[in-house]
């Protein structure tokens, strides 16, 4: 039942998205624009600074993620559909998981465009350890979205929600950014530092477990009016 509800919520979000493709297009374009802006700051005499690729990649993901989170819940607010979802006689944590999966999938699509682009523009060896890189990206995205989905859902009712989301989200998700950037930078070295990347991956996994659990636990009291 739980998984079925989560699946249905996710499918609803994806169906809406597939029909308009608004969030995917705008978020991908925003992420690419971010990469270009950072390129002007971090490329010197035609060569990127050391570790710039990993940093640019994760900052673009975080910025684009905030945009996607805001838009996804703005859509729910527009015709009070979030209230309708909350009124449905199903478990609230299942709704949260459904929303989370939708956001994670969306961000993974953005990353699928972003990562090769960063690799191309900054000569980053993304094929060094592709599986480990994918694992870092997925676990980082899950951690970022776990906190983001909860806060964005709460902020639907709040005033000045567009400003509040980044203010709340960035301080909390700093460990994800640090682990993601450092882990990816370790992989992008000429001789990939696999142990280091694996250690950061473990930290990200631990972060995901703690924050998904905490979100599931607090979603119910937080969404009750």
């Amino acid at each position, binding site marked *: 039942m739980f998984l079925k509800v989560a699946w249905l919520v996710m499918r609803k979000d994806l169906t809406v998205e597939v029909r308009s493709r608004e969030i995917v297009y705008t978020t991908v374009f925003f992420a690419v624009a971010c990469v270009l802006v950072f390129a002007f700051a971090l490329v010197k005499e035609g060569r990127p600074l050391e570790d710039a690729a990993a940093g640019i990649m994760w900052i673009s993901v975080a910025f684009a993620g905030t945009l996607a989170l805001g838009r996804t819940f703005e859509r729910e607010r527009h015709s009070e559909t979030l209230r309708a979802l909350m009124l449905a006689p199903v478990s609230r944590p299942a709704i949260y998981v459904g929303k989370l999966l939708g956001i994670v999938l969306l961000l993974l699509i953005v990353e699928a465009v972003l990562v090769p682009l960063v690799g191309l523009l900054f000569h980053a060896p993304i094929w060094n350890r592709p599986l480990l890189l994918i694992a870092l990206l997925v676990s980082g995205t899950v951690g970022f979205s776990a906190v983001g989905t909860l806060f964005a859902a*709460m902020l639907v009712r*709040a005033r000045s929600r567009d400003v509040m989301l980044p203010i709340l989200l960035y*301080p*909390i998700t*700093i*460990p994800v950014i640090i682990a993601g950037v450092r882990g990816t930078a370790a992989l992008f070295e000429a001789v990939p530092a696999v142990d280091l990347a694996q250690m950061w991956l473990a*930290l990200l996994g631990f972060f995901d477990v703690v924050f998904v659990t905490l979100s599931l636990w607090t979603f119910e*009291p937080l969404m009750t009016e």
Partner: protein
Amino acid sequence: MKKSYPLFVLLAVVLFSVAPVMVAQAPYEATMGLVQKIFYYHVPSAMVMFLSAFICGVASAVYLFKARPEADRIAAAAAELTVVFGLIVLVTGPLWARRAWGVWWQWDARLTSTLLMWMIFVAYLLVRRFGGPGAEKLGAAMAVFGMANVPFVYVSVNIWRTIHPTTRVVPTLSPGMRGPFWFCAIAFMLLFGLLLAVRARLEQRRADVEHLYLLADEE
């Protein structure tokens, strides 16, 4: 409780006027000399900051799950005090670092995690102030997540090297320094307790006034 406030205020005034004398008489540290005296204000403020953050996190969790308005008032008061004492830590720290390490700021584990924790509580205050109706719950979630975040921030930043002295410094202090240090720590704790009680009471009064307005409107 209310009647004992003047007594505690007096006690705090006495402690804070005696503290500089005790600090002045404490022995000089061998390598850092006079600058090391910042320690007597820096470390107690940091202790109070962490205590206050912890109180805020626990009170927020109680508010979230038990929906008790008192807990929310304590959390709000503790968050404000975390920011205030955190500011003392973040101002005295660089002053000391400039002389001891030669730089104002180092991106080491303890500094970075303290700054981040401070930012989480600033965000808490911002969301309470500008979040509109229902912002208390948002703030409570921020405090609970912020508390859960502390170990992660610490571990993740710790992998860069640390030059900040660890907490093991305190038990190994020389006897001449130990007295003034604990005196200052007690003074700061007392001040914190007093401010927390007064601030939580103020919130309580505000809630009472609001309630009376509502009653008057209904009539």
